[in-house]
């Protein structure tokens, strides 16, 4: 029995990136198995319970064993600067949890050394209900990854009464295109079928004399007979439920679709925020979810209307962010990705309110969005040890350049938004549902010099062909005629939900090692405030001047610019344990809001009275990290 259990544990452990990946809802078992396999490196805490009662687990990956060398004993895990990884806010983004699990395993097996000095917290899935729903196989695949709280999206006093349906019974909810919709159908033709590629529906080009002839909407019927299709329910234009990544207090998009009734209204988001606010050692947060905020960094120096909250990042954090972005690009070679939506997001909150470096990455992008530096590749030709690990990115065929639909256009069409766009589905203005749009500026910014290529249907179709050639199932359902009970003849087709967010399982090992390299690099930059030189000088009988220097040996400043602004952390505190009546000059409590990185110093100086030969005690407590107590003897021959 015991043997059998062991074998099964091993079997599960090796399958962290294997058969179960991206396909099975067995995450909780995998977490426990991994923790059992690495008892000195991984333990778990349940920080809350999802709406449907599933546990929300944090894995703590840190080395609780003895040091291999004879250096000083490592600080307690809760005092080691920590990296927090959160995945699975969106049930469609399955790759997040799998990479997070793989990361835990890779760190535990290959990087136990650095884990004496740093801790990595991993929340592999913040939204276990949505993941379970995506993977339960009990319903057609749909473009829906939110929490399942029912919401009356169209305010008509009926809740979730008109979602999308799999009309053609192919197991997938895609799109319907209606040619020349008749008067009274309530539909308006706004698109054309691309003459060069009939799979693509796009805006007409008036310069070429093209005329709109096609209406687009999600697959389904008008269930409630209000003349609108799929306007209130799962898979429709306004999907009901709460998008966990729009439910955080930072720039909370009040009234926007999926934002929830108030910030942290969901048990999952609140559990995470409460747990994070109690943790004292988190120095950076990386969120695995649709959308990017590293390859294209948020704008620096812009403020919200309140005049204080940053819209993107603080000016003085840009240098550090540039370094973080460089680490990330070196590890992943991702050159472009759709920007992550910021209002109400976890990464936005973790930066602007929680006040640590924070970012969002989709982990995986289309191969043509990856750019390995050309000259380097030629120089090292096959010598790089990584060359074997990393599959060469297939070179995409020259893509045709039809005009793709942008989010606004999709919203107008009453369509589910492009899933690879971070922007959650916006309800349609006309038929699609009432408009509950966020404030102006809620739309993701277009990266400087970028275009909409990444959201481009043609590129995805080209990539899909590559995948089919490699033996993977297609991620596109070809348009097929269907006799719609309410609309008459339509065509049904489009991308399979989740296709544009998740890689083939074979790419997981590469993604895991990329993220491990990034995580190790990031932890290497953490601030490390230590006690430097100390001096005692005799000024007169029983009168002394005392200095203590704190030095930050890590590359990052002891607190980021946002950390200094937000003051959620304590400053680095240097506290002199001498009664006030003996202090002639200097503050008993010295506060250093930020000590620059790479050797930045913070000196404290006091004049005190005391008997020669007596000892004074000084505590140096960094914002993030373990505190040190220094004992100084009041004597002539100072060190």
């Amino acid at each position, binding site marked *: 029995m015991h043997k059998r259990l062991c074998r099964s544990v091993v079997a599960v452990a090796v399958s962290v990136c294997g058969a179960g990946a991206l396909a099975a809802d067995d995450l909780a078992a995998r977490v426990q198995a991994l923790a059992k396999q690495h008892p000195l490196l991984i333990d778990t805490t349940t920080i809350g319970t999802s709406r449907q009662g599933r546990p929300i687990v944090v894995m703590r990956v840190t080395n609780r064993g003895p040091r291999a060398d004879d250096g000083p004993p490592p600080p307690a895990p809760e005092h080691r600067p920590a990296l927090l990884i959160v995945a699975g806010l969106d049930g469609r983004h399955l790759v997040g949890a799998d990479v997070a699990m793989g990361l835990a395993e890779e760190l535990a097996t290959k990087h136990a050394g650095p884990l004496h000095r740093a801790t990595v917290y991993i929340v592999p899935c913040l939204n276990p209900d949505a993941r379970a729903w995506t993977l339960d196989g009990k319903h057609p695949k749909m473009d829906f990854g939110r929490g399942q709280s029912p919401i009356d999206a169209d305010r008509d006093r009926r809740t979730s009464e008109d979602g999308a349906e799999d009309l053609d019974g192919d197991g997938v909810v895609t799109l319907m295109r209606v040619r020349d919709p008749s008067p009274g159908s309530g539909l308006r033709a706004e698109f054309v079928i691309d003459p060069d590629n009939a799979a693509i529906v796009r805006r007409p080009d008036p310069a070429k004399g093209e005329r709109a002839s096609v209406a687009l909407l999600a697959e389904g019927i008008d269930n409630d007979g*209000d003349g609108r299709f799929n306007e209130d329910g799962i898979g429709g234009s306004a999907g009901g439920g709460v998008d966990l990544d729009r439910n955080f207090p930072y720039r909370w998009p009040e009234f926007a679709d999926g934002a929830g009734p108030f910030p942290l209204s969901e048990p999952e988001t609140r559990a995470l925020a409460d747990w994070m606010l109690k943790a004292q050692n988190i120095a950076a947060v990386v969120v695995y979810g649709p959308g990017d905020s590293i390859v294209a960094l948020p704008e620096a120096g812009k403020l919200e209307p*309140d005049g204080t909250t940053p819209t993107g990042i603080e000016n003085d954090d840009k240098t550090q962010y540039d370094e973080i972005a460089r680490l990330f690009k070196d590890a992943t070679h991702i050159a472009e990705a759709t920007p992550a939506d910021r209002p109400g997001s976890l990464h936005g909150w973790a930066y602007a309110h929680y006040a640590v470096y924070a970012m969002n990455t989709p982990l995986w992008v289309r191969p043509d969005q990856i750019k390995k530096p050309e000259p380097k590749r030629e120089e090292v030709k096959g010598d790089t040890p990584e060359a074997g690990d990393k599959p060469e990115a297939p070179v995409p065929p020259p893509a045709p350049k039809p005009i793709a639909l942008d989010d606004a256009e999709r919203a107008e069409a009453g369509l589910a938004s492009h899933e690879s766009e971070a922007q959650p589905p916006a309800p349609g203005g006309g038929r699609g549902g009432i408009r509950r749009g966020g404030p102006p500026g809620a739309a993701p910014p277009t990266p400087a010099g970028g275009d909409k290529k990444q959201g481009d249907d043609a590129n995805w179709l080209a990539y899909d062909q590559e995948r089919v050639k490699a033996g993977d199932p297609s991620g596109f359902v070809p348009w097929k005629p269907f006799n719609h009970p309410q609309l008459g003849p339509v065509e049904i087709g489009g991308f399979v939900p989740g296709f544009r967010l998740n890689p083939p399982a074979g790419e997981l090992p590469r993604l895991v090692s990329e993220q491990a390299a990034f995580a190790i690099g990031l932890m290497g930059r953490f601030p490390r405030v230590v006690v430097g030189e100390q001096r005692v000088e005799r000024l007169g009988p029983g009168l002394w001047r005392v200095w203590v220097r704190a030095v930050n040996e890590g590359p990052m400043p002891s607190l980021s610019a946002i950390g200094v602004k937000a003051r959620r952390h304590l400053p680095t505190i240097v506290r002199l344990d001498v009664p006030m009546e003996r202090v002639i000059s200097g503050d008993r409590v010295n506060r250093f809001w930020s000590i620059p990185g790479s050797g930045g110093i913070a000196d404290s100086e006091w004049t005190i009275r005391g008997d020669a030969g007596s000892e004074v005690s000084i505590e140096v407590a960094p914002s993030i990290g373990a505190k040190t107590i220094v004992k100084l003897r009041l004597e002539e021959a100072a060190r």
Partner: protein
Amino acid sequence: MNRTVLRALAAGLLAASPSLAQPDIPGKVPIAFNRYYTYAEFESHLKAIAAAYPELVELRSLGKSLEGRDLWLAIVNSPKTGPHTSKPAMWIDGNVHGNEIQAGEAVLYSIWYLTKAYGQVPDLTKLLDSYSFYFLPSQNPDGRESWFRDPHTSSSSRSNLRPVDGDRDGLFDEDGPDDLDGDGQITQMWKKDPSGRFLRDRADPRVFVQVEPGQRGEWTPLGQEGIDNDGDGRINEDPPGGDDMNRNWPSDWQADYVQFGAGLYPFSNPEPRAIGQFILSRPNITAAQSYHNAGGMILRGPGASYRESAYPGSDRAVYDQIAAKGEDILPYYRSLVIYRDLYTVYGGFVNWCAEGLGIFSFTNEMWTAGKYFQRDITNPDDKRMWLFRDRLQFGLTFKDYTEIEHPTYGKVLVGGLNKWSSRVTPAFLLEEECHRNFAFTMYHADQMPLLAFERVEVARAGEGLWRLTAEVRNQKLIPTRGAWAREKGIGQHDLMLCTPAEGVSISAAGYPSSWLDQRMSPVRHEPGRLQLAGGIPGQGSVIFRWFLAGPEGGKVTLRYEAEKAKTIERDVVLEPTP
């Protein structure tokens, strides 16, 4: 005189009695409103009222405060006209800031007066038959209790008691003011100092006067009573609490570094969370008042300039009309806007109610200097204020200076005006202040929507075809859905249901622009279930029209439903209206 005549006379007298009886409306629970009550005393008064008027009052605890006190809510409703959930309701609370105590008495007074008036005062009886009320006397019982119990100033004990590390030294609430002279108050410290900039007034040594430049003084102010409790060289730098629970609400909430006291996140404190959950569960809440002190203000949102668009013209007109009446009801009070006339507030309670939930909300800052002398002296000078303190309050708001030995400063004088000396309505004026504010909120409540079928007409439109036109009027100022609520999709649409009986069917429906309009803008879908995103405007109406197929004498039922109005229904017979 025979008996019948006598009875008729008596009936006449009785009918006339409310106006005659105005000086005394007998109530079952005697409560004096020339004094203040602790939260524990509030609890017993509330329980007594609920016990005396069980048919009108349901006392409910919304949850517990941080220190475990019940957040008592009194639901006041006349069940014979329907459950409280079936009527538009007004939310009335006070005392979110623990030190702003008369706000609590104003709410208690309102419950007390309204319950005893029901059945005796026709206007208030009618009001309570039309609407329901949610009264929460204190949003911050811990802060209120501490203000009475512990040494305080008129401004301290504003927050709840969640420990906050105000001076960011890793210690929580470790250095607040201390009652050094043991009088139960926090007053001021003065140090005799040859280079001081103050002198004691020769005529009145209670007054410290700043000297002219070049002149020498004798005294230096050292701030509030207190010592350096944590030995860090600073005094009173980290007092108890710190979260301002009127900054802890979801709409336009900003982090603590933008606005000190915001809390960790919206609803991070148990009191706002419990209150917020209840308000979210009651979409029939249509109007709200949240009492504060002080300044004599009738305030509406927004709390920040960039949110002014949350008050579209038609909504603003409603606010302006109600507030204008308030200025008449409440002498020396002014109608103001929070961000423009007071200061910027992010995540305030009435901002959430108004901007987040579409509830027409005011916050009254009770008590103002104009009330001291009630003439044209709206800003009494020092001399008059001492007259008030000496001759009207008999010196009770001043603590004479006594010398104490301070551990850091040596001999200092401790004394001055105590916590009752400002912001709080003087007790002998409290009842009037409560009554006027109560009267204003009752006027506000009386502007909640009240719907009626104003005109319903059937005309023959062809062989077996009938034209039914119906007008629904809202007699009050507040619309069933405000313009902001409509714009942002707050709450659910109103519904006009037209249900034909057997043998009748709806052929078409729409909205004529007026009774003279022969045509209508058509509704293509669900003609028996018309959705009105904009509801029925304040003091306005909407006209509906259906074409019905059916025999003469056929029947339909019209029913108008709104979250913020009582449902109305009308049976209609298909026959030409004379």
